[in-house]
Each structure stands twice: as structure tokens, then as C-alpha cells.
């Protein structure tokens, strides 16, 4: 019985400590064993007992798996189906037979939204703001817990927004610029801190409302702004978190950022579809864009979104047709890149955004 008591102390805030996790093992050793169960079986663990369910849903579980390199990263895609409704799919990229699977439906009130943000932080995915055809921008936030496959309402944005940029930087969510109700300052951004569950609003005149895309590179948020009708000039602004200001970004970098982008180990990759489909890489030391390789146009179904897991870029297009490129051994310039692919859905859903969640 010693085991039970010492284990319960070790498990900290765990309730229902009357039963050991595993009979015959102290809880810390039981955690050490159970945390090695592959992620696809976590739903099974939740069915075993209340304590197991609590464990699998806990922050302790997440931090243990991350700390000991046991985590597995799944990709979540926000889509719009043929009925013009939002839906979400998940892909386990390491499954023997890879396929996209639909997750729990989004809350009904959000199904018809446009221009919302989609961000992943910790084990949660946030659906932020947005608007409808006849509905003004909203400040509502919904949160999907990937450990329990459920959506819940979360603390609202401090500013109602739609068609804005959202990014995660230093464990905080940024909701930046975009359009809002009349009262919204178009040069403002909000920061969400999950530790305090609060939003904070700031503004800077360098921010413009017309936002096309955003990335985080070298600890800074870059936003690609809409090209004006007068010139086709592409430009970007960059947020410096150390002093909280927005500045114009390197024009050469912005000039090549002409498609969906992803960052791997501090290197920016862009899928350029202006002449064939090429994966481009920004070489910041030489300040120039170089081609990594070409992709067969038969494989990709634009518009595409990019996410990266380690050295692999997932190019996710219409109907969630997915091409996986390994850039670890790439760099042959104009050659066709070696890739693998994931079967698309039977429907032709548009992909709006893709995010990774590691548990």
C-alpha cells in the first residue's frame, strides 16, 4: 500500500487518488510505462478508468511525453465543405496506412464563418473570430482539445476580427489586424496568454488591415500584406517582440513570398505556383530566393497549405490531397522532388488552414 500513497503524492493535482494507476506499480512508474503507449491508443486508455482518463487529458501527460521525446505530431486541417460549412480533419503522418479522418464537428454557431483564425497551442486548437455573410465580425473563440476530441467555448478576443492574421509566438496567440466592426482599430493586435487566460490589445500604425498571410521566423512574426490595386508590389511587415513594434520587412524576402509558406529550423520555404510548381527557399545570409525543386502539377491540387514536421513539408490541397516532401535531402535546384502522398477525401473540400499538435 506504500506504493499507492507515495504515488498519489507524486501525481500532484490528480484527483481520485484512491486507486493506483496500475496495481503493483507506484504512479510515477506507471506513468513512465503508460506514456509510452502510442497516441492512437490514447482514446482506448481513456476508457479504462476515470484516473486513466484524467491522466491522458492532463498537462502532466503532455509535458512528460514532450520531455521524453515520446510525443507524436498529428496534422489538423480546417476545411470548407461543399455545403459551405467548416469541418476539421486529422492526419497521423506516421500511421502505416495514412488517411485523413474527420474529427468532432465544430460548434454549430461557427459552421458558416469566414475569415477566422486557426491556431494550435499546447494540445489545443483555437478557432478565432471570423464573420458571416450577414453577420458582423465576432470576438468568439472556440477551443478544440486534441486529447479529448471536444470543442468548447474559450475566452473571447478583446477585439472582434475577421480576415486577420493569427500566429503563435513564445507560447502566446497573436490575432493581428484584419477587419472588424466599426469600433475596431485596424492597426491593432491582440495577444492571448493561456497561463492567465486573458487577451491584451495593442496598436501600431505600421499595421495595415489588408493581410494575406503570416509566418513566424527567427522569433518574429512576418505578415504579408495585400498588394494594392495600383501596383503589384508585395510587401511585408515584421513584429519585433522585444520592443513590441511593427516595421517593414526585408523587401527582397517579401518579393519572393508569393505563395503558402512554412518555416523549418529557421529557414523559410514557399510554394511558388507562378510558373509550374516550385518549392523555394529563402537564404537569409545571401538574401536571395533559391529553388529547392519542382513538383509535378499532377500531384498538388491548389490552393494548398503547408505544414512541416521535422524535415518534411506537407503540401495539403483541395480535398486534402497531400504530398509529403523531405527537404532534409533536397536541394537539387530544378529537379523534380521525391515525394510520397496521402489519399485525398472523396469530396473536394477547400483547405483553409493546417496546424500541427504534438502529444
Amino acid at each position, binding site marked *: 500500500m506504500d506504493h499507492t500513497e507515495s504515488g498519489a503524492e507524486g501525481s500532484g493535482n490528480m484527483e*481520485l487518488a484512491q*486507486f493506483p*494507476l*496500475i*496495481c*503493483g*506499480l507506484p504512479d510515477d*512508474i506507471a506513468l*513512465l*510505462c*503508460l*506514456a*509510452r*503507449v*502510442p497516441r*492512437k*491508443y*490514447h*482514446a*482506448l*486508455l*481513456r*476508457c*479504462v*478508468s*476515470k*484516473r*486513466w*482518463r484524467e491522466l491522458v487529458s492532463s498537462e502532466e501527460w503532455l509535458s512528460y511525453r514532450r520531455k521524453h521525446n515520446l510525443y507524436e505530431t498529428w496534422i489538423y486541417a480546417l476545411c470548407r465543405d461543399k455545403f459551405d460549412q467548416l469541418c476539421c480533419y486529422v492526419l497521423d503522418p506516421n500511421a*502505416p*496506412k495514412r*488517411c485523413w*479522418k*474527420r*474529427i*468532432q464537428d465544430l460548434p454549430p454557431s461557427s459552421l458558416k464563418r469566414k475569415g477566422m483564425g486557426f491556431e494550435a497551442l499546447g494540445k489545443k486548437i483555437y478557432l478565432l473570430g471570423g464573420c458571416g455573410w450577414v453577420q458582423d465580425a465576432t470576438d468568439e473563440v472556440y477551443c478544440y482539445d486534441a486529447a*479529448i*476530441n*471536444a470543442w468548447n467555448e474559450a475566452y473571447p478576443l478583446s477585439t472582434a476580427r475577421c480576415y486577420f492574421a493569427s500566429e503563435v509566438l513564445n507560447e502566446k496567440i497573436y490575432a493581428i489586424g484584419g477587419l472588424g466592426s466599426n469600433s475596431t482599430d485596424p492597426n491593432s493586435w491582440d495577444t492571448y496568454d493561456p497561463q492567465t487566460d486573458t487577451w491584451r490589445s495593442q496598436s501600431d500604425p505600421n499595421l495595415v488591415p489588408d493581410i494575406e498571410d503570416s509566418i513566424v521566423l527567427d522569433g518574429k512574426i512576418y505578415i504579408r500584406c495585400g498588394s494594392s490595386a495600383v501596383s503589384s508590389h508585395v510587401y511585408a511587415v515584421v513584429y519585433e517582440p522585444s520592443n513590441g513594434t511593427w516595421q517593414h520587412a526585408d523587401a527582397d524576402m517579401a518579393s519572393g513570398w508569393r505563395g503558402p509558406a512554412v518555416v523549418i529550423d529557421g529557414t523559410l520555404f514557399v510554394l511558388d505556383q507562378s510558373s509550374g510548381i516550385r518549392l523555394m527557399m529563402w537564404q537569409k545570409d545571401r538574401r536571395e530566393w533559391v529553388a529547392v525543386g519542382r513538383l509535378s502539377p499532377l500531384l498538388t491540387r491548389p490552393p494548398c497549405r503547408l505544414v512541416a514536421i521535422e524535415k518534411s513539408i506537407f503540401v495539403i490541397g483541395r480535398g486534402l490531397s497531400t504530398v509529403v516532401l523531405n527537404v532534409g535531402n533536397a536541394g537539387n535546384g530544378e529537379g523534380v522532388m521525391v515525394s510520397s502522398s496521402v489519399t485525398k477525401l472523396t469530396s473536394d473540400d477547400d483547405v483553409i488552414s493546417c496546424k500541427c499538435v504534438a502529444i
Partner: protein
Amino acid sequence: MASSIENNNEKLTLKSSDGEEFLVEKHVALQSTLLQNMLDSDCSSADVIPLPKIDARTLALVLGYCKKHADASSSKQGELNSFDSEFLKDMDMGALFNLVLAANFMEIKGLLDIAAQKIADTIKDKPHQEVREIFHVENDYTPEEEAAVREENRWAFEGFP
């Protein structure tokens, strides 16, 4: 390298919880961080080191693992991997628990990892009722709660291979 260590032929004695003594070559014992720390802190190797939490059967297994890993050169990783899986094959859950506890106590990371992984792997593709039986987990769900949590997680089991 290995031969020079063997030549030096230092040995120490470990004593299991049930009083059995094991004479162990020092380089084998060094697989355990616990023993390594004890030897470093000038604990005389002539002394008998008691391991009051580990029974003789488990200790014999642990030392078998340590000997194999101490003697194998690092280039033979493949051979060690097949040794590891053979070593744990057909081991019952009670023996695995003892092994994981011993490896944790003696701080033998490699053994702890493979034994814990083996325990985790037994959960794969089993119905939750069977997992409960294997690990003697008290089912604290009411039938209604259990049905609800099954329903909550139903999506995860759809299209299970």
C-alpha cells in the same frame, strides 16, 4: 578495452531482498548508475551491497541484461536489439513490473526503457476491458459513464486497422 577491464577482474557482491548473493564483475555493475555512484563515492567493493527491493529472480535477469550490454561493443547495436527483444519475450506482466521497478531503482536507463515500452505495447489493439484485467485496474466508471466515455472516443476507433 574490454579485455583490460576484465584483466583487472574486480568484482563486487550484490545481495537480493531474499538474501541471495551475486558476484558481479565491476564493468557489468557499472551499467547501473546507482552502483556506479556508490563505487565512485569510495564505497568499498569488498562490501556486500544490499538491494532490499529486488528479489533474486529479478536481479538475475537484470544482471544478465547488464552483462550482455557491458560486454557487447557499441558497433553491435543490431545484435543488442535482438537480444533485448528476445530477453523480454514471453515475460509475464508480474516479471515485467519487477524488472521495471528494479531498473528504475538501479538506474539502468536502457533496461527501464525497453521494459516500460514492453508494458506499454501490451495495450495495443486490446479492448479496454482486457487492458483493465491485465493491469488490475479498478473500474470506477458506472455503466452509464462507461458508455458515455466509449461514445466520446468512438471516433478514435473508427477505421482502426
